[in-house]
């Protein structure tokens, strides 16, 4: 791995919520095009970890760099950096007062100063890609959960990010809608997008992951390619976790 390919580097990252130590000595490096899947028990710090990468959360020690730019309180153009890091939330967080199309065009128009026509053409392209072009004029509340999450993915993609962060994108969906979202994510992975996904969808993880990460109590306990991770986990805690999650 050469330096030019490295996109995100976290080294010695620590974070506290008051007295509570959520992230402990996190070291992680993500290459361009790499697909990382993060799993671990509830409260282990998975969300906090990926939210530090676009600085929705601030870390107190260690360093996080994105394409060589250090992310800390001195970072000047944090808003600009965030446009290169897409994020998809468990609760979708679509803008309820805007149509799906306007959700997608808001960023390009207000941040990138694109013309409305260009922004709409781009939005339709991505809505097509997530297979909901016919929902463009509806409001988020009129869509099913799966459609809403795909709209949220399209909204992120409209900023043409270099990496996509997913925080349990299917956890609040009804079972029959999980697949339609995972299909979109697999498609995205195959297109070469750099992705960091917090998810417990192990089928998805086996299909797309280059690197599996298991977190527990704020630490990265195990990290490695999926074959070894699933078939011969080194840590007892990983084994236990996998046996619990795969038995479901």
């Amino acid at each position: 791995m050469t330096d030019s390919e490295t996109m995100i580097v976290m080294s010695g990252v620590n974070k506290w919520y008051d007295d509570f130590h959520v992230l402990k000595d996190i070291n992680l490096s993500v290459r361009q095009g790499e697909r990382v899947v993060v799993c671990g028990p509830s409260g282990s710090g998975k969300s906090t970890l990926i939210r530090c990468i676009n600085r929705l959360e601030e870390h107190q020690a260690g360093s996080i760099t994105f394409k060589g730019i250090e992310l800390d309180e001195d970072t000047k153009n944090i808003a600009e950096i965030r446009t290169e890091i897409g994020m998809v939330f468990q609760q979708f967080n679509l803008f309820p007062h805007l149509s799906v199309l306007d959700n997608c065009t808001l960023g390009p128009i207000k941040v990138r100063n694109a013309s409305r026509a260009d922004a709409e053409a781009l939005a339709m392209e991505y809505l097509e890609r997530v297979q909901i072009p016919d929902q463009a004029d509806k409001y988020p509340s009129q869509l099913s959960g799966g459609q809403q999450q795909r709209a949220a993915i399209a909204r992120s993609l409209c900023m043409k990010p270099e990496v996509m962060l997913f925080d349990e994108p299917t956890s609040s969906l009804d079972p029959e809608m999980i697949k339609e979202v995972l299909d979109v994510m697999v498609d995205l992975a195959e297109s070469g997008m750099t992705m960091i996904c917090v998810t417990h969808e192990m089928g998805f993880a086996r299909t797309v992951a280059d690197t599996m990460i298991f977190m527990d109590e704020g630490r990265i306990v195990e990290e490695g390619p999926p074959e070894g991770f699933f078939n011969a986990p080194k840590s007892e805690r990983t084994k236990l976790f996998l046996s619990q999650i795969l038995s479901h």
Partner: protein
Amino acid sequence: MAVPRPRARRVRWWKSKPFDVAQFTLLTGLVVWLTWRGAAGMEYRWQWHRLPQYFYEIIDGELLWGPLVYGLMVTIEIAAWGMVLALIIGLITAILRLSDSFAGRIVSTVYLEIIRNTPLLVQVSIFYFVLQPILGINNPIWTGILCLAFFEGTFASEIMRAGINSVPRGQWEAGSTIGLSRTKTYIYIILPQAIPLMLPPLTGIMVNLIKHSAILSFIAVFELTTEARNLIGDTFMSFEVWFVVGPMYLILTISLSTLVGWMERRVRARQ
């Protein structure tokens, strides 16, 4: 255990509609009668016929508005400008209070505490006797508008803060992740969701402005109450004038509430 069967609900006669109407009519009648008796007792001379000329007169085929209409216009003007300024002051205060800036939070807190904990009449006096000469305002109406705006701005800021806070945190985060600055997130995401929630309580402020503008008669602003007092000074028709001016305020405030209710339903329907 046997649950007693609920008895078929009978509408009690004292809860029926006709009784309601009868009650209302009786009450109104009583009030009118008492007033009339009281007035008769003090040998009050009713002169309703003299009142219309203080609304309008037609002289040589030309329509001239009377003092009551002028007063009403000034009251509306005060309320309208007061509302605009109160909204601006309220929004700035709310955003300062929600900001990370220490200075901003101090300034807004000091403003809120001072206005909330002193009598409005004292504030009006300070604005009129102290600030008006210092700021070189040459028309007391603007002193009055400014004073009322700062007073009502405290309520506006509270309503706006609540409205802004009721937009879920995820909306801020979604805005950040597509690269919107804090200001742009406010403009395009937070406020459009918060404003429909703020509208009904903000009507209350407009209504308050209309009511509280009466206090400006204290600093010689020629709004409705001042005109009414002057008229009584000239004509001694105190009963007639107050019986007319009271309902004028009522009509103004009630039609305002109705208008906002209608606007609110339209905004809701659009979503």
